[in-house]
């Protein structure tokens, strides 16, 4: 087709989309694709599930970044975020990326998106009984979920990831609790069963994460296509995902990939308990004895 046909098609599409843009407010006017999130299976990875289309905060796109020092830092932060063992080898201790849990490059609602986390920090965290800045929170991710070392607060890695998160949160209001923040709420009165969890895992999770939770390597043999969920190369016993309810909330909202919210709460809890009972690296805060007692009892 000739370029002018493309232009004509674009104008026609714009004209057809005009009532759409006028019927609702800003998300459609700025990004008509927001209106199509429900019908678009590819969009499910990022925009899932919407009670009302366009209701979520929409982070900026990568090609909107300027090519100055700050833009380069943000791009570096994104590179670290989606390829952590390669880009932050000094500090990453396992095969996981930041984006293994913070799906869609940290954009997906209900997978602890960066744009919803940034406005809430500094905040109090019960985990260390202190007020943490965003940078300290990233340190905890490296220490527990990456099973690695804490990057120093002035390191390039921390500065880059912080810049990336802050850029994703562009336009979100400081202190504002955005819908999609954190994980999906789950019921609190569920008795999980590891036996049922094993069945659910083999039926619904093992296809990607492997029957022994070892994940699937990419073609280069180093990076992971699908991350391991237990074993030596995954998050340790100090990570938030080691808590059954936290893991269940994440699983319910996001797993199986692309079909989030398809598992009932009970099955999400079962799988989470099954994951917890399998072997994984030790909690770096604890000594051998308390770690072993956790291994023997499961809790």
């Amino acid at each position: 087709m000739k370029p002018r046909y493309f232009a004509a098609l674009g104008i026609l599409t714009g004209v057809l989309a005009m009532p759409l843009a006028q019927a609702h407010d800003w998300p459609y006017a700025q990004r008509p694709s927001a209106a199509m999130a429900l019908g678009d299976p590819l969009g499910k990875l990022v925009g899932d599930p919407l009670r009302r289309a366009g209701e979520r905060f929409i982070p900026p796109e990568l090609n909107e970044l300027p090519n100055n020092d700050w833009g380069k830092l943000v791009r570096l932060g994104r590179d670290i975020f989606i390829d952590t063992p390669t880009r932050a080898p000094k500090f990453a201790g396992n095969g996981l990326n930041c984006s293994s849990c913070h799906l869609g490059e940290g954009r997906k609602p209900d997978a602890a998106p960066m744009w919803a986390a940034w406005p809430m920090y500094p905040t109090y965290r019960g985990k260390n009984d202190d007020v943490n800045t965003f940078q300290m929170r990233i340190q905890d991710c490296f220490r527990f979920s990456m099973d690695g070392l804490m990057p120093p607060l002035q390191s390039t890695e921390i500065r880059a990831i912080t810049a990336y998160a802050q850029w994703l949160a562009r336009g979100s209001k400081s202190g504002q609790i955005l819908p999609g923040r954190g994980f999906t709420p789950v019921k609190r009165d569920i008795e999980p069963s590891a036996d049922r969890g094993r069945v659910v895992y083999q039926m619904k999770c093992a296809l990607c994460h492997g029957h022994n939770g070892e994940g699937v390597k990419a073609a280069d043999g180093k990076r992971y296509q699908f991350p391991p969920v237990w074993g030596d190369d995954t998050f340790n016993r100090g990570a938030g995902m080691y808590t059954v309810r936290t893991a269940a909330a994440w699983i319910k909202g996001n797993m199986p990939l692309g079909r989030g919210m398809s598992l009932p709460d009970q099955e999400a809890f079962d799988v989470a308990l099954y994951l917890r009972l399998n072997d994984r690296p030790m909690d770096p805060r604890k000594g051998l004895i308390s770690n072993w007692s956790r291994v023997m009892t499961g809790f």
Partner: protein
Amino acid sequence: MKPAHPGWLLLLGTVVALAAPKPDAPDAYLNVPAAGNIVAVPISTPGDVFLPPPIIDIPQDKAGDMIKLGRLIFTDTPRYARRFTGNALSCSNCHLSEGRKPGAAPLWAAWGMYPMPSAQPGEVWSFESRIQGCFRYSQNGQGPQLDSPEMTALVAYAQWLSTGAPARTELAGRGMFQQETLAGRALTSASKPVYSASHGQKIYQFQCAVCHGADGLGVMRKDNSYQFPPLWGQASYGGGSALAQVSKLALFVRANMPLGRGGSLSETEANDVAAYILSKPRPPDPRTGWRQRWREARR
């Protein structure tokens, strides 16, 4: 002729007040009350300045305690951040009204803009490194470590002050150096200014000396803290701070001084006063060596 009865004047004033059109402000950006408030500066459009939350809204929990500590550090730095401070100034001596006043580098407008590219190529300022720069140059002390409670508290206070302020958005009233208009008038003219320190001395004695003292050493309370900050001398800011440049000090003076009557000095007067203030001795720039300091002292 007999002077008009006060009642007529009152009636006339009421009629004028009722007839004046009321600007409708969007809810997040509230109108700043005009009279009896040192926070208010002339703004070109009423209602275009962000209003940070009042201090009674600080939450009553551990995060709130950190915010309160940050406010104490901000308003009484020599006392609450004693180990990092080198002079008698507090943060709020330049960031007026506890960091709230538009045109005096308010925190709520700064928080969302960091990280930002710095003047030096290859360097990106984070909010924390900017605070460290304030301590090093303007407080003539040392930058607090990134994991120190002072730093966490100041960051928490800044983030709380900007509750509701959008991230990465230029807010009206940001900074104090902007070349924009104040009360509809251009703050700086295009021509290169000529400074006259001797004229500035007259302006100083007339406009500034009543608070800052004829010797520029400020006014001290009984407990040795400062009621009005010293403008030069060993207890004032160092030669490396931004306000040690005539053009920037002139803009600050123009926008904020005399206290409560910002915008009342003309551009020439502000320039001359700034030149006079900066002709006086002050702590040296910590980045310079003794040779350069000796040369500057002889000049």
